[in-house]
């Protein structure tokens, strides 16, 4: 889709409208155009990413990854089962992760530590697609968020233990 202000270099600028209401009218029009354009930009990457996410879920990737992540959980002071909401958060989103946290019996500290990890890394496929649209590498950012989130959670767990 072409940009609305895609005028050739050197072309005279359009006259800005005079008066309050004409200005508001122009801004509304430009806002709706920019909104629709951005909506379309995001939809193009988010819908395929959402399909990939659903497919990963259907293929049992969440259960498989949770088993892989299980031994890691003790480094965060969490039970092995906490790997499930973590991976659910990575693949799906925060709401799904919170849903699967309800099934576990966690202490306040464990909830906080798990929250830090999930808040930094979640919805990696869809949000990775958005970052890709902004010109970044979605895979690298997904990996970064997993690693940085786990590291933040480990440090938080240690600090909460120290500070009481």
């Amino acid at each position, binding site marked *: 889709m072409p940009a609305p202000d895609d005028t050739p270099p050197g072309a005279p600028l359009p006259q800005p409208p005079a008066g309050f209401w004409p200005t508001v009218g122009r801004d509304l029009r430009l806002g709706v155009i920019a909104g629709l354009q951005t909506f379309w930009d995001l939809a193009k990457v988010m819908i395929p990413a*959402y399909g990939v996410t*659903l497919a990963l879920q259907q293929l049992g990737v969440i259960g498989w990854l949770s088993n892989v992540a299980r031994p890691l959980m003790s480094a965060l002071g969490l039970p092995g089962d906490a790997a499930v909401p973590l991976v659910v958060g990575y693949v799906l989103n925060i709401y799904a992760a919170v849903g699967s946290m309800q099934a576990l019996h966690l202490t306040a500290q464990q*909830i906080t530590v798990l929250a830090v990890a999930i808040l930094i890394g979640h919805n990696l496929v869809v949000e990775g697609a958005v970052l890709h649209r902004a010109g970044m590498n979605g895979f690298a950012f997904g990996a970064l968020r997993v690693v940085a989130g786990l590291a933040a959670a480990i440090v938080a767990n240690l600090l909460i233990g120290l500070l009481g």
Partner: protein
Amino acid sequence: MTEFLHTFVGGSFDLLLRVFLIVVPIMVVLELFEGTRAFRAVVRAWARVVRHVGLDERSAAPTLIGFLFGLAYGGGVIVREVRRHDISRRQVFIMSVFLSMVHAIVEDSLIFIALGASIFWVLVYRIVWAALVTLALTALAGLWVERARRRRGGGLDG
């Protein structure tokens, strides 16, 4: 398979509706208020904060939107800004790192706070962590770009 398609179509519709209902109003409000003194004051105040992670005044508005409403919406504004002005790749990189660590500050944090997580660790600690990671990665990326440039024998861009 029909089950899958059913979920996909329903979920896609929800997702699109959500994005639409947030993105279009954000863009309209931005367009209406971008030129006003109050808006510029808010953005300038925010710019003074995010200056510490290496973001300039032009990156302040997209960063604020992402920080408040979510990565997708901030990403949308970033895409818009990149299309309108030339924002450097370095600025886009810094924004992306910072926002990928912390975004949708109200909505996302509240869900976990409601569940019993500590406000301090979920908000303050996470923001500090995001700032540290952003500074560290920007420094690393700077070194990497510099090295790549030197190996090419002094290219023009990084």
